[in-house]
């Protein structure tokens, strides 16, 4: 029987902290996931990026790179790094429950 995870302890992460099963993610987990990456206060802009990551992944099967985020999410590169200082695409993917985006640019 599958149950909706209530806490992160019920989630399986890979060695880099990304969801093994992106289906196990739901928005209720986001505040705890963000805290895990040092983001204590989630702003509307954080949510915008996280939801964009999730939507891109669901539509295309892969999360966007920082370059794509900067061009299409409505949040500039500068702001992205203010919101997610330890790497916008990487952190937002961890928080959005999707695999790590690949790409060199």
């Amino acid at each position: 029987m599958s149950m909706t995870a209530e806490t992160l302890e019920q989630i399986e992460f890979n060695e880099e902290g990304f969801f093994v099963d992106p289906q196990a993610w739901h928005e209720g987990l986001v505040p705890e996931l963000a805290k895990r990456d040092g983001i204590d206060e989630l702003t509307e802009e954080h949510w915008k990026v996280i939801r964009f990551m999730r939507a891109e992944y669901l539509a295309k099967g892969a999360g966007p790179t920082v370059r794509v985020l900067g061009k299409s999410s409505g949040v500039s590169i500068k702001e992205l790094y203010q919101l997610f200082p330890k790497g916008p695409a990487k952190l937002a993917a961890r928080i959005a429950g999707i695999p790590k985006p690949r790409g060199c640019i």
Partner: protein
Amino acid sequence: MESIEKVSIIISKGSLEGIYPGLIMANGARAEGIEADLFFTFFGLDAIHAKRHEHIKLATVGNPGLHFATWAGGLPGVSSLMTHYMEHKMEALDIPSIPEFIEMISDTGAGIYACQASVDLFGLEKNDLVPQVQDIITVGEFYERAAGSSIIFT
């Protein structure tokens, strides 16, 4: 597992193929949450030269990677043609142009510095360089900033 916390990347060449790798490595470092500084020296300064950075050329002479005869690379117009061809391919892959890339890397919070000795050598001033350049620094100041980082020379 030990991870890289900071990289200090030196760009010393002024050709297209001499500039891009360092830019890609700096941008990629920031995307991973790694601190990055870029230090432009010698002909690498062209990448941050306001009047020149839009006109960076691929080296077609003495570049065996292109796999065509050396004499052909020296013919008039060949460098421009090959540069244009390469830029076209890069654009198709959504790789930014050098001016746009410098701006983007600056927006990631990376440091962008020019080498004092090279600026003196070419008779340049701060306003000859793009506004993203934070400072013109000496090699000693570079090493101070680079403390504890991995230094990458390109």
